[in-house]
């Protein structure tokens, strides 16, 4: 049987509550009053969209989030979980419909303009001007923050180098590859030297190599102390980038913790995957259920959560289970998500 559990909050389990050392250097050195405040503080934050049919859509249903300076924080969840709605509220381009929200110690409803001046935003869909050059895109964007032309030019040169686009600096954006455009969008978001960088699915749609180049750039920012907030539906991305994350599903937070703590709390050390012809996996299931604490049944495979994958595999073989192929791997956030919601993340 496929195990199903009601989503539970990580607060139920004391071993994975947020620990103080997950938040490096909370207070800045130069004594601005806002430095003491968290970068993002949301309580019972809600977003409801009216619809034509009259039944409003509750995209975000009362979430509590706190992000400290210098942290790398992630919103993880499938499409439609409410991640992007949350990001738009944090970016001050969408008014909340309930709850409390404070960004950089200010209220987005009152100080949206000032807050936006200190944010960097990487949207889900690139919105570069493809008719203009790489450099022009950077310069123009800097102007929106009230930065002088000469300063924009200087920063554009720096950022072109940061984005590894030096030899493309005076090329029209139109001809760049998807990965290059994405790097340019990230570079553009840094033109105002933001304290808080919001990345909405930064690597969706990129090939593996382009993703790694991008992650490398984000690591550099992280090391420089920029606070990163990332949404993703990729588990590996969350594990690569986030010190701490929340798992969202259906507009609520279903778990919170570091990737490691979440895996520790909601999965086993290893996972044994037994792959079958689709549909034949059910016949094998009764043979292995009592081998491990938990079995997940996916359309073409069984996932056995175990402390020792090889030993479990041997045991399964000795019971006459004959899968087409097998794999022993470490647990990932994907397994955490499966456990929490009973669904896999990318359908």
């Amino acid at each position, binding site marked *: 049987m496929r195990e199903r559990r009601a989503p539970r909050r990580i607060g139920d389990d004391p071993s994975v509550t947020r620990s103080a050392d997950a938040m490096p250097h909370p207070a800045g050195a130069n004594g601005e009053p806002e430095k003491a405040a968290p970068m993002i503080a949301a309580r019972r934050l809600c977003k409801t969209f009216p619809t034509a049919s009259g039944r409003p859509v509750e995209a975000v249903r009362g979430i509590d989030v706190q992000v400290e300076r210098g942290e790398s924080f992630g919103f993880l969840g499938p499409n439609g979980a409410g991640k992007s709605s949350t990001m738009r509220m944090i970016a001050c*381009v969408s008014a909340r419909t309930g*709850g409390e929200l404070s960004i950089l110690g200010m209220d987005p409803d009152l100080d*949206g*303009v*000032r807050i936006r001046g200190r944010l960097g935003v990487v*949207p889900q869909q690139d919105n*570069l001007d493809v008719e*203009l050059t790489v450099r022009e895109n950077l310069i123009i964007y800097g102007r929106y923050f009230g930065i002088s032309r000469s300063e924009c030019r200087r920063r554009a040169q720096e950022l072109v180098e940061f984005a590894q686009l030096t030899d493309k600096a005076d090329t029209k954006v139109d001809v760049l590859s998807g990965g290059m455009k994405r790097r340019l969008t990230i570079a553009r978001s840094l033109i105002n030297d933001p304290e808080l960088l919001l990345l909405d699915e930064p690597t969706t749609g990129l090939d593996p190599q382009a993703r790694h180049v991008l992650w490398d750039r984000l690591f550099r920012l992280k090391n420089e102390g920029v606070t990163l907030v990332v949404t993703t539906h990729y588990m590996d991305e969350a594990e690569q980038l986030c010190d701490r994350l929340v798992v969202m599903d259906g507009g609520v937070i279903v778990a919170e913790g570091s990737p490691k703590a979440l895996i520790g709390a909601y999965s086993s050390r290893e996972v044994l995957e037994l792959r079958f012809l689709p549909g034949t996996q059910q016949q094998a299931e009764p043979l292995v259920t009592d081998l491990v604490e938990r079995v997940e049944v996916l359309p073409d495979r069984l996932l056995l959560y175990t402390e020792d994958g090889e030993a479990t595999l041997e045991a399964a073989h000795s019971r006459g289970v004959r899968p087409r192929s097998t794999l022993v791997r470490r647990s990932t956030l994907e397994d955490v998500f499966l456990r929490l919601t009973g669904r896999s993340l990318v359908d």
Partner: protein
Amino acid sequence: MATLDHSHTRPSSSPSVPSGGRLMVWEYLLRCWRRYAIPSLAEAIGTPLLYLLALGLGLGSLVDAGPQSAALGGVSYLQYIAPALLVAAALQIGVSEGSYPAYSRFKWSRVFWGVTATPVTPGQVCDGEVLFIGTRLLAASTLYYLVLLMFGVAGGPAGLLMIPSGMLTGIACAVLILALGAVLQSDGGAFAMVFRFVVVPMTLFSGSFFPITQLPLAVRWLVWISPLWHGNELARGFVLGTAEPCSTIGHAAFLAALFVAGLVLARRLYRRRLIV
């Protein structure tokens, strides 16, 4: 931390809006224009030349020789249509710049979403568009004026006021198209419909090519609400020296009111589109 349970205030209504935002958007649009400024200015000179030669001189030679030419008020056909051609060109530019190019910045390039992620507000984005289209209109109307001057049909010094007459007509229509673009979700051909069923009939029946006294009384009210007719009357009055204070103020006030109403509407719809 502020509490808000029923938020009607929008992020863009902040009191600390730096007013420079609209100028930055204007600057951006000018930079985009730079890529096609030469062809667009060449067109701004070439089109009037073609119209003046074909209609003013070609068709005009027949009209002026005809029995009804007195209906034009004692001027040649070329003199009659010259100011109207300038205003019609301004209308054309206002409407076309306000349609697909502005709409694409919501829909395809999505550039506006990037702009409003910065301190620039949606209202300022709208203002920037209006400033840019106004600049386009100034350049095109001035060139048109110079061509008319070459043909000797630009009137006296008061004829210079054709330029603001054209600009006002063009921008008053442009803001309405900007507003339309802000609510369109799919392309849907809505702009094409406006061109075909509003702009073209307006161009033909607004006293550009023949006086509206030639139209049946029953449809003349349609002409009175045509911005182009007000623009034509305004420009023609300045060029031919027939302007009367009352009617001049009336025509200008109609266009100004249309512009202000359209601008308020467009700004509101930009905000609604970009802050969701």
